[in-house]
């Protein structure tokens, strides 16, 4: 490959100027003529039958255009095909405080709000189930009637290898119980949509991460042809997983627009955002790990209970993910996973950055830390003893390709001065380590497993204008820029020369959206494929003029030249004109599907990915023993992202992950109390770290070039979040000698632990009582040589 001009170099994002000048238009910035405003009325009950809804007073209020309730949008939907358990508005029963019950359109937002107050709802309360223990108790009521075991949404039991035998072989076996609190994405922009229904066609501007799934669900629920729905993404003020499924207000705005003949805007308040949620599942986990005296892992058994809230969301995937991702970092020869997602009367949980990874990673990395201590080993040495190898297969049949984990560990070990400083720091200070792995896009699609995951179309006009069309969702991570950068690298121009038309289901090929860290890898590959076709035509046309074989030609700055004689060149725009003359209009479509991956058991595709990213983290903390306050002083995070297409953006993603990890480690929780009430439905009560609590974050890029990634790239947007919380927690142990097996490390909790009085009863962590079924014991599928 000739030297790269764009790829691998820090560059300004193509949409950056619009962001710093205030020109970028987000959902609430959309103002259309005759636009009306919608508001949702929400349930004040955690669990109740709706006996009566009277909207007559609301309808009579001057300025109110229409009011809808559950019966007006009765068709169920859900992001996963086999869990269609939501309706836009509650039908006859509400299942959490904050669930949408009715929607109003009015001439202005104040009137819409006042109309909501005038809607009378008569509830007949049902006993709410607010903890997993209550929901799984014998004789508990049911939140949904369709689950086989009451309130157990999804049960997974898998055993790979013989775990009991593995523990028998071990010199040391540990069992621990962990609690990872739930938390929310809290993008700075709340959900915002504008719907316009005109002539039977719907256009929805929505700040969603998944325009394709929203289009699909809108067609289904509104009962109109798929082709009559167009979902367009405005600028999006952050997602982090919270905007990655079709949501109530999208249907309500659309239906209200259909009924009123006006565009309808709905913007959620911050409080409503917390009710919409879909955030990180609270998880109670039991883990058992066996090791040989030299640190070799013999086996791992985990039981995970996920508190799912009231609806399915991505729950099946969440459950599998919490089992699938743990064995990717270290060789685990035998692995047993029992997982259950439990329905409770709380806002639904879903995917948040690192989906399914952070909770088991927290438990496992702390347990490894404890094992290292029991064995008298350096925590890093224990991990090193068991590192997965590049191009290998995990015990649960996941194919690993490129892997820079070893280098990541070496980098943070060196950067943090681990060997020299650990254990020799002043009282209250400590270093902690953890590592992790994550997907670069999931190996399977949710609806059509046989169809491409991403499509892109690239066209070049005769004047040299280059446009790439892709359904991908720019949510701030820079996906638009990366597509432009790839095309620019291929065709000898600069990213600013490439127009990206993305996230518009009316004109772009399907891409499944911004979730599971898939965009760079999948949209990137689709775009490269399309560009490659055009590139061949351009080289062919240039070859005729330059009288040089196409293989001898390459793209330079706005030109095509002989790689051995740069003076023998043709201007790009001239080559374009000649190519169009020779081949006709220049346009090409590319698509990407990952290879068929996964083992030979049910659910084995979840956890597969065409490539995994790897991360290692060292955290340095300072714990004030007098106040219990934990300060994260510094984080070193080394991330194997494959080729860093734009290092500036990769550093930013890693830092964003690390910051979010600090929040989850120290202060962020979405707590629902015994009445079903959200305990922190505002930005004052739900604490996001400020620039003061967020430490300096040293990010190190490790580039294990992946053979299947675009220019060898893998993901960076989610993986680095995984090791942060356990690294900080392990550092707090180093600093204080006290182990914390739960999040978050709030000052009161730390203080209590540090100043425990003799004989003071300890609150021990527990998991709910639950009998998992006999596990499925699949035979392994091997991709590369030895499977262990």
């Amino acid at each position, binding site marked *: 490959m000739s030297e790269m001009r764009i790829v691998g170099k820090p560059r300004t*994002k193509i*949409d950056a100027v619009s962001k710093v000048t205030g020109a970028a238009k987000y959902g609430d910035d959309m103002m259309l003529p005759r636009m009306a405003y919608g508001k949702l009325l929400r349930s004040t009950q955690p669990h109740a039958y709706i006996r009566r809804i009277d909207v007559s007073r609301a309808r009579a209020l001057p300025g109110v255009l229409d009011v809808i309730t559950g019966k007006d949008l009765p068709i169920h939907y859900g992001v996963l095909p086999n869990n269609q358990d939501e309706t836009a508005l509650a039908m006859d029963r509400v299942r959490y405080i904050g669930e949408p019950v009715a929607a109003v359109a009015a001439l202005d937002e104040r009137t819409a709000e006042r109309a909501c107050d005038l809607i009378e709802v008569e509830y007949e309360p049902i006993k709410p189930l607010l903890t997993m223990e209550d929901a799984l108790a014998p004789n508990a009521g049911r939140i949904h009637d369709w689950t086989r075991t009451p309130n157990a949404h999804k049960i997974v039991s898998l055993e790979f290898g013989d775990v009991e035998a593995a523990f028998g072989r071990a010199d040391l076996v540990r069992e621990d119980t962990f609690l990872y609190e739930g938390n929310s994405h809290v*993008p*700075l*922009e709340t959900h915002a949509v504008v719907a316009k229904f005109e002539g039977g066609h719907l256009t929805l501007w929505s700040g969603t991460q998944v325009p394709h799934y929203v289009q699909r669900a809108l067609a289904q629920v509104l009962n109109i042809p798929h082709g009559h729905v167009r979902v367009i993404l405005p600028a999006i003020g*952050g997602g982090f997983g919270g905007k990655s499924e079709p949501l109530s207000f999208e249907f309500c705005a659309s239906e209200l627009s259909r009924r009123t003949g006006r565009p309808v805007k709905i913007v959620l308040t911050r409080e409503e955002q917390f009710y919409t949620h879909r955030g990180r599942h609270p998880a109670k986990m039991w883990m058992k790990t066996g090791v040989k005296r030299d640190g070799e892992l013999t086996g791992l058994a985990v039981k995970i209970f996920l508190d799912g809230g009231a609806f399915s969301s991505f729950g099946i995937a969440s459950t599998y993910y919490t089992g699938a991702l743990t064995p990717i970092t270290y060789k685990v020869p035998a692995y047993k996973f029992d997982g259950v997602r439990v329905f409770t009367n709380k806002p639904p949980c879903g995917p948040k950055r690192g989906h399914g990874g952070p909770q088991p990673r927290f438990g496992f990395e702390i347990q490894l830390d404890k094992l290292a201590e029991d064995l008298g080993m350096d925590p890093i040495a224990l991990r090193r003893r068991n590192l997965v190898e590049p191009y290998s297969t995990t015990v649960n049949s996941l194919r690993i390709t490129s892997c820079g984990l070893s280098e990541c560990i070496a980098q943070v070990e060196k950067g943090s001065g681990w060997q020299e400083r650990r254990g020799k720091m002043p009282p209250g200070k400590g270093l902690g380590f953890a590592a992790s792995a994550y997907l670069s896009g999931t190996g399977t699609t949710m609806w059509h497993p046989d169809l491409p995951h991403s499509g892109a179309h690239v066209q070049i006009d005769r004047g040299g204008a280059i446009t790439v069309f892709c359904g991908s969702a720019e949510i701030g991570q820079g996906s638009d820029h990366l597509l432009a950068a790839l095309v620019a690298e291929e065709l000898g121009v600069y990213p600013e020369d490439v127009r990206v038309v993305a996230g518009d289901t009316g004109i772009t090929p399907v891409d499944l959206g911004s979730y599971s860290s898939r965009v760079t890898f999948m949209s990137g590959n689709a775009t490269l494929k399309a560009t490659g076709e055009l590139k061949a035509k351009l080289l062919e046309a240039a070859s005729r003029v330059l009288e040089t074989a196409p293989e001898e030609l390459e793209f330079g700055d706005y030109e095509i030249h002989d790689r051995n004689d740069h003076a023998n060149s043709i201007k790009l725009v001239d080559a374009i004109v000649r190519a169009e003359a020779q081949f006709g209009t220049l346009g090409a479509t590319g698509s990407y599907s990952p290879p068929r991956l996964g083992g030979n058991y049910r659910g084995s595709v979840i956890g597969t990915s065409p490539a995994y990213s790897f991360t290692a983290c060292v955290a340095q903390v300072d714990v004030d023993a007098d106040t219990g306050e934990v300060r994260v002083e510094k984080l070193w995070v080394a991330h194997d992202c494959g080729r860093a297409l734009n290092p500036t953006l990769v550093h*930013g993603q890693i830092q964003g992950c*690390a910051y979010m990890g600090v929040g989850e480690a120290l202060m962020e929780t979405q707590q629902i109390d015994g009445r079903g009430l959200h305990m922190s439905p505002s*930005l004052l009560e739900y604490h996001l770290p400020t620039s003061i609590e967020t430490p300096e974050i040293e990010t190190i890029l490790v580039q294990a070039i992946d053979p299947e990634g675009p220019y060898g790239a893998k993901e960076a947007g989610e993986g680095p979040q995984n090791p942060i919380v356990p690294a900080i927690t392990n550092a707090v142990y180093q600093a204080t000698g006290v182990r914390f097996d739960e999040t978050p490390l709030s000052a009161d909790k730390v203080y209590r632990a540090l100043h425990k009085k003799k004989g003071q009863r300890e609150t021990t962590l527990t998991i709910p009582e639950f009998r998992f079924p006999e596990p499925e014991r699949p035979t392994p599928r091997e991709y590369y040589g030895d499977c262990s």
Partner: protein
Amino acid sequence: MSETENVVVTLNVNGETHTVLAPPYETLLETLRERLDLTGTKHGCELGECSACMVLMDGEPVLSCLTLSLEAQGHALTTIEGVAKNGVLTPLQQAYIESGASQCGYCTPAMVLSAQTLLDKNPSPTRQEIRDAIAGNLCRCTGYVQIVDAVELAAKRMRESVEDRVRRET
């Protein structure tokens, strides 16, 4: 509920004078966004808990969500739309885009204004001083590191350009 009568409100925003008819209880956030189309001013809570709606009043940061438009009269207001002059980015905006300090961009308008007022007062802030100065502006994407980088870079360039000018003039 009887509405209170509209009043005439005259605002000086980014050097332009705007006169609107608005109820006395309308906040500057509503007037800027919904009457003057200055949608660069964002909002994330409307309760003073995120500072995404920050604007400058006589050069000092205030929150438009908790300021009545009536009371903003007679003051020079600056929104993000008024920062770049004649399409030319300020050194801070330039450093911001180069440093990757804007991801989703939703906190950016307020953050740029916030950081600019720091640089106006302190031409060579330390990283800690930058962190302290922007502590009232929540960002959910960046982890603040590249924002601090950007402010540092802008400060350096602004100092160098001043030194350059002094050198040329002497």
